């Protein structure tokens, strides 16, 4: 069961061909049918969604403008603060948490008539690449239920692939939008750092966390970004958006300067994935793009940099979960200190604790310079190399992940191997640049994603080239 393009859904709602209520009911029905098999969703916002739908329908009836996303249903990753359901980041630590305010991104989407119908499963606190770290069970891949949907935004990607909603929201700290989008055969955009306000989203690593849409196609992705993006007084790291709409794009591939990242085409890349990605590069070349090989020598260091900076920042961000102010609190503790320790030990899962331990170590006295400061300095080296590359090409391309979706349970006992799956996505987060995953084919029946990156604040051009490529891929 699929959805029309978002602009058509809005058109139909405004013309009275369908109603917002019908859209919400359709989403809820598909969730009810499919979620028991795939576990893409951890909770539904049924009551509030229906109320909002009736409100949108009443605006239409009164001849008022119901907004650019009127009656369009969506699913937010469970780390977005949203009214109408719990916000748990799929962790027992936040079980039962009722958001006292909403994330800016969701507020902006609602102001244009979009309706959140459910919360998507994720790796708890977004720690992971498979949703196997969710405290509420793994999300299964829509193309093969013995395989993972990817992560950490695995529920979001699966929910779009399963047709529950036309779009879902994800967060991407090191690939958590792009990798599940790649595994589930949908579009996933990680915008420029700061383009979408982080206010009201459970923080992971503040210097690399980015919010973005997961959709069926680039048009839908563009219109959702257009609504979500822009500076927000509640997030001082947010940046000004482009004045032009993200949804009106200058198409064409001819003459575009595109660099193929050599470091991503090594022996670690699965041959079937490689073949699909190379076919896509040939399409770009055939349509007149100027393709060159680009070397980014520090790229093999990106994952090591990432696994210093991110645990450091998340161990700091997670210190707020102390069992005193909200949600999980151990009742057996005899004093305050024990209450902190017991609440955190029981509330956090194994992966959060592992990362808190690493982060605490790399930030601890005597190690800070050797690990954290060193990693942030190698980060500068990486940024310089990307900037140099963008001096000669407009876009960089490559795979999203070294393989297609892996089997559930295959990597759970090997944290480092699991971390290595992020090797092609983390650089964009460290450099703050926009990057997108576009479905480009299948390898042994499983979707393969094609990654395109560009320089900071060039998100419009990224969407334009993505749309141009999509037109060729769907011919």
């Amino acid at each position, binding site marked *: 069961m699929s959805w029309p393009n978002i602009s058509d859904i809005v058109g139909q709602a405004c013309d009275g061909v369908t109603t917002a209520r019908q859209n919400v009911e359709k989403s809820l029905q598909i969730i009810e049918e499919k979620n028991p098999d795939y576990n893409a969703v951890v909770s539904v916002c049924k009551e509030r969604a229906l109320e909002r739908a009736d409100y949108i329908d009443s605006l239409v009836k009164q001849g008022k403008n119901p907004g650019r996303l009127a009656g369009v249903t969506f699913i937010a990753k469970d780390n977005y603060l949203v009214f109408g359901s719990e916000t748990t980041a799929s962790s027992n630590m936040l079980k039962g948490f009722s958001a*006292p*305010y909403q994330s800016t991104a969701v507020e902006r989407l609602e102001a244009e008539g979009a309706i959140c119908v459910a919360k998507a499963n994720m790796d708890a606190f977004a720690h992971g690449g498979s949703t196997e770290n969710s405290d509420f069970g793994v999300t299964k891949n829509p193309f093969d239920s013995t395989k993972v949907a990817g992560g950490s935004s695995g529920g979001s990607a699966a929910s779009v692939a399963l047709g529950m909603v036309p779009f879902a929201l994800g967060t991407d700290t090191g690939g958590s939008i792009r990798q599940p989008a790649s595994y589930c055969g949908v579009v996933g955009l990680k915008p420029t750092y700061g383009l979408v306000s982080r206010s009201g989203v459970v923080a992971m690593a503040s210097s690399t966390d980015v919010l973005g849409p997961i959709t069926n196609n680039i048009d839908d992705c563009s219109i959702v970004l257009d609504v979500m993006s822009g500076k927000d007084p509640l997030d*001082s790291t947010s940046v000004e958006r482009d004045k032009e709409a993200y949804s009106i794009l200058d198409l064409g591939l001819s003459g575009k300067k595109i660099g193929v990242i050599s470091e991503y085409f090594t022996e670690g890349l699965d041959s079937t994935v490689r073949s699909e990605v190379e076919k896509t590069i040939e399409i770009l070349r055939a349509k007149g793009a100027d393709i060159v090989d680009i070397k980014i020598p520090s790229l093999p260091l990106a994952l090591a940099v990432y696994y*210093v900076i991110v645990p450091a920042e998340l161990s700091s961000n997670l210190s707020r979960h102390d069992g005193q102010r*909200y949600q999980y609190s151990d009742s057996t503790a005899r004093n305050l200190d024990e209450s902190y320790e017991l609440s955190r030990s029981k509330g956090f899962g194994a992966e959060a604790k592992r990362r808190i331990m690493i982060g605490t170590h790399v930030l601890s006295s005597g190690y800070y310079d050797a690990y954290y400061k*060193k990693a942030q300095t190698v980060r500068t080296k990486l940024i310089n190399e990307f900037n140099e590359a963008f001096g000669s090409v407009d876009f960089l391309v490559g795979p999203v992940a070294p393989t297609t979706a892996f089997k559930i349970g295959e990597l759970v006992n090997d*944290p*480092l191997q699991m971390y290595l799956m992020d090797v092609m996505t983390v650089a964009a987060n460290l450099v703050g640049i926009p990057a997108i995953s576009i479905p480009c084919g299948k390898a042994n029946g499983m979707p393969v994603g094609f990654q395109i990156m560009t320089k900071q604040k060039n998100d419009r051009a990224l969407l334009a080239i993505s749309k141009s490529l999509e037109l060729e891929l769907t011919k």
Partner: protein
Amino acid sequence: MANKLTREQIVSLARLARLKIDDEEVSKYQSELSVILDYIDMLDNIDVSGLEPTYQVTGLQNVFREDVVQKQPTDAGKLLSLTPSKQDRYIKVKRMI
């Protein structure tokens, strides 16, 4: 494993992070953290002379705003309703010692 942390180091880290861990977990973290720290070691010999660390990736510094009183959209009662233990308008915690 070049970076094998001692049991004492693991216990001390857990204490700093306010995590209570048992003996079995100490052993588990000893090996898991060592594998990851060994991987991170590849940064050791990278020449970064003349480079400064990047803490903010879009180059923002000191984002100021006017110091004016703003009405908060979230009321205190709603926030307090989330606390595990409270008395009147105060969050109640266990005794300190």
